[in-house]
């Protein structure tokens, strides 16, 4: 049917007015919808907005809070919030991460190394006015030792505790079953007994219903809305001195590009990224006005690890790692064919440091650098020679053959979500391909199943290292292997070496920091020689902040370090507002003005619609 039959009447004023009415209808409907749903969204009374003139520091975050209970929380954001809201026994010096006073002013161990006595400060107050004492600390530790729910997040810290007592308000005594060098690195938030003893089930109490939350850290948590924001107010009576900003707000940006846009606009003062800004984001922000990009040495290492033959503590072997990797010469050959410099330049685009030992150089006392004779430097010719010596010769087609006479092709586990894994995987295919070894990249969303089952040959691996390296060292001990092949151990990749284990036990019982650091370096040296892990890079922490909002801020380490995710509360506690005072919350009043204008426009539209509707229905009656 042609359009002429139906006619195509001129679009007269009536037609236009109907268009206006329909658009207004849609607007009005939308507003009704908004108002209808907006009200029950927020049944709890809101905290008052920041008072005029208050300096607000807003930080963009992406990670959800898993729990606000210090007994349950394990994510970086949640534990950082606990660092800000509760004092721990000790803290880490921002310069070099050595132990400094926290709630405890000093500490000492008995000659038999089994009893630790902490002196608790007398000038720390809970935010409800009560004094923080040794009794609070003893109660916190005892709760974790006796209640499985309370041990959820930090139970490993008290696993070796025999007894914890508080003989006086300023004295805390911890008796150990065996010596433990990590007693000045107990990352456990101490909670107020008088508040927490009323909690029933610790495995379910999330501490996120009543605000403000009673604490004694540099900030007090005053408001929280899941995946929207976390608000903290400066604790003016904090013993180390009050923070310079009046308020600290963590605001959610689930998309990193949106967070960068918010920084450009000034809606947030700081963006860290997950775990770093991309090279492209960093490059674009470098030229922006009033923005400083902090390209700091990171605390992570990025490695390629081999499957050393998965096994359980009961001696049973499992998995199907390629047997050629059990030969140390093969492992060394593979790593000597990796050009780490190219990885830094091409993949990380300069935002990383070339890898050497297991612990990143920012932890200078534990950093291990292989000697010239020990170093597995880039040398493809020597790598080929090592493979020949190990008996893995090339065939006519240039492929290395395994003991079974078939060409070797390694399965490399990679994280599908990590573009670095994929990019480096391509390089490995090229470099190892030249040696005559095939590479098949198994990029998966979740690599833990084949990893736990030992059904891989090599894998991209990486860990964040704490100022106390005990944990990352422990995951390579034989004790970390699963009890049986069916169990899950705490091992990283089934390394079990007697010499390494002996050194591990020695460092854990060594209370002299310098001597302990020496043993830790020997452990790293052993790990390096074994060749089970090749640390390729230490990726930088790339983050950015607005200099018109933050005048200065403490990095960790102090010379050239990161800001987000520090050990301690140094960054946000030390941040000094810029003179302009350009608090990132200034946009709020503008927001309301614009919001009001938009709302008013829609209301006027709705009114017009109803008025015109009356006229139109009168016209239409026939």
């Amino acid at each position, binding site marked *: 049917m042609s359009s002429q039959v139906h006619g195509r009447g001129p679009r007269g004023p009536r037609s236009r007015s109907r268009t206006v009415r329909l658009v207004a209808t849609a607007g009005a409907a939308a507003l009704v919808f908004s108002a209808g749903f907006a009200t029950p969204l927020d049944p709890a009374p809101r905290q008052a907005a920041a008072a005029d003139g208050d300096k607000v520091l807003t930080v963009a975050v992406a990670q959800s809070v898993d729990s606000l209970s210090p007994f349950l929380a394990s994510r970086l954001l949640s534990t950082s919030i606990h660092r800000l809201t509760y004092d721990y026994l000790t803290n880490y010096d921002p310069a070099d991460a050595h132990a400094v006073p926290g709630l405890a002013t000093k500490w000492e161990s008995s000659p038999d190394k089994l009893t630790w006595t902490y002196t608790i400060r007398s000038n720390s107050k809970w935010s409800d006015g009560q004094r923080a004492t040794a009794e609070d600390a003893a109660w916190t530790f005892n709760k974790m030792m006796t209640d499985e729910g309370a041990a959820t997040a930090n139970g490993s810290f008290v696993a070796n505790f025999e007894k914890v007592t508080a003989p006086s308000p300023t004295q805390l005594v911890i008796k150990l079953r065996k010596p433990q060098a990590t007693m000045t690195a107990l990352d456990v938030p101490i909670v107020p007994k008088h508040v927490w003893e009323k909690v029933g089930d610790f495995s379910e109490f999330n501490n996120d219903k009543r605000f403000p939350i009673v604490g004694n850290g540099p900030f007090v948590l005053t408001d929280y809305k899941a*995946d929207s924001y976390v608000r903290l107010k400066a604790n003016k009576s904090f013993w180390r001195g009050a923070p310079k900003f009046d308020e600290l707000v963590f605001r959610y940006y689930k998309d990193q590009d949106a967070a960068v846009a918010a920084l450009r606009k000034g809606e947030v003062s700081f963006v860290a990224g997950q775990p770093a800004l991309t090279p492209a984001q960093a490059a674009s922000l470098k030229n922006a006005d009033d923005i400083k990009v902090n390209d700091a040495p990171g605390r992570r290492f990025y490695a390629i690890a081999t499957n050393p033959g998965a096994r359980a503590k009961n001696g049973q072997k499992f998995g199907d790692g390629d047997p050629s990797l059990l030969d140390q010469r093969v492992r060394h050959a593979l790593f000597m064919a990796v050009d780490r410099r190219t990885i830094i330049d091409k993949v990380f685009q300069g935002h990383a440091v070339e890898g050497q030992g297991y612990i990143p150089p920012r932890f200078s006392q534990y950093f291990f650098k292989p000697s010239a004779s020990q170093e597995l430097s880039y040398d493809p010719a020597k790598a080929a020679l090592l493979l020949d010596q190990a008996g893995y010769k090339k065939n006519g087609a240039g492929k290395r053959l395994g003991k079974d006479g078939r060409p070797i092709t390694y399965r490399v586990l990679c994280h599908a979500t990590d573009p670095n894994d994929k990019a480096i995987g391509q390089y490995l295919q090229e470099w190892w391909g030249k040696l005559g070894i095939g590479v098949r990249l198994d990029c998966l969303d979740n690599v833990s199943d084949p990893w736990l089952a030992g059904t891989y040959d090599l894998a991209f691996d990486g860990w964040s290292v704490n100022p106390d390296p005990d944990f990352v060292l422990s995951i390579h001990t034989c004790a970390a292997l699963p009890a049986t092949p069916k169990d899950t151990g705490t091992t990283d990749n089934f390394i079990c070496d007697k010499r390494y284990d002996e050194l591990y036990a020695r460092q854990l019982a060594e209370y002299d920091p310098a001597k302990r650091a020496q043993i830790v370096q020997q452990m790293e040296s052993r790990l390096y020689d074994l060749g089970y892990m090749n640390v390729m890079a230490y990726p930088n922490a790339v983050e950015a902040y607005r200099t018109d909002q933050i005048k200065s801020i403490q990095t960790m380490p102090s010379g050239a370090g990161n800001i987000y995710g520090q050990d301690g509360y140094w960054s946000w506690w030390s941040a000094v507002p810029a003179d302009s005072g350009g608090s990132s919350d200034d946009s709020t009043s503008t927001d309301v003005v614009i919001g009001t204008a938009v709302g008013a426009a829609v209301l006027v539209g709705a009114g017009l619609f109803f008025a015109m509707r009356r006229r139109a229905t009168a016209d239409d009656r026939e």
Partner: protein
Amino acid sequence: MSSVQKAVAPIFDEPAARNTSGSAYLRYGAGKVGGAAVSLLAVLVTGFFLFRLIPGDPVKTMTGGRPVSTEQLASYRREFGLDLPVWQQFTDYCGKALTGDLGTSYQFRAPVLDKITEALPNTLLLTGTAFVLYTVLGIFLGTRAAWRHGGLGDKLNTGLALALYSVPSFWLGLLLIIVFSVGIGPIPGLFPTGGMESGGEEGLAYLLDVAHHLILPVITLVAVEYGQTLLVTRSALLDEMGGDYLTTARAKGLRDDLVRRRHAVPNALLPTVTLVFVNLGRTVAGVILVETVFSWPGLGGLFYQALSVPDLPLVQGLFFFFAAAVIVMNTVADLVYPLLDPRVGR
């Protein structure tokens, strides 16, 4: 019903109307509701087994990166019931689900139902507002485009709808953020870059603040979604436009405008109604990409977080909830059809 409509729309005659309100309709309705109940049960069972195929050990993933003893790992497994045989986990899950208990989230240590009810209003606010707008806009523009098909307006409208429908929502969202949030050239940054609220507002200021945060994500959703409604409405109306009853209506001297609104459109609406109800069902599922780009704290983001662990109770609960919404809305659509067109359900 006016005599004009009786004459031009014989499907609305009296016997048919009686038929739909009688026992036939009840039988039809009971069949549809029964079918929906079976579907819900199937979703419950499928959800349980489907998500157990996701690779990964939830406990290991949750505790990755921090010191955990083997005893603690075993305790987690006990706590979450992961040490039980699968058949026992299944019967526990079904038994609890029937009483409305969807389990406890591994990562948030909170009842799944609480997490859903916490995020649901946020999603409904965003997708509901967009739904109203794109449905009205789609039907209105679709009707216009069909009525004047072949014309410049039709070509422009259809072309634009097709183009926007093909645009990835996250890309459009980011573009809107760059242009209207940050501001480019003479365009000032008018809207927030993300989130649902600034925080710390009360009363009317709070409502306006939320409305202000709502604008860009809603525009994004409307832009990519209205095209579908437009195209379905347009095509349905084009099919109707050959009907003799329209010629009759015109011959009686009715204005073209009235012929369209009162006669053609109501008869062409059935496919659009189907689409509207399907969209209404999808509304509760949120739009994961748009929620992510605009950092909207809704169900889409929650589902993404649940899958990344994987947080099995939360994944299963959300899967069931999303599927249930679509099933219920489809059933409602089925129940509404006979009222619109008595031939359905006879």
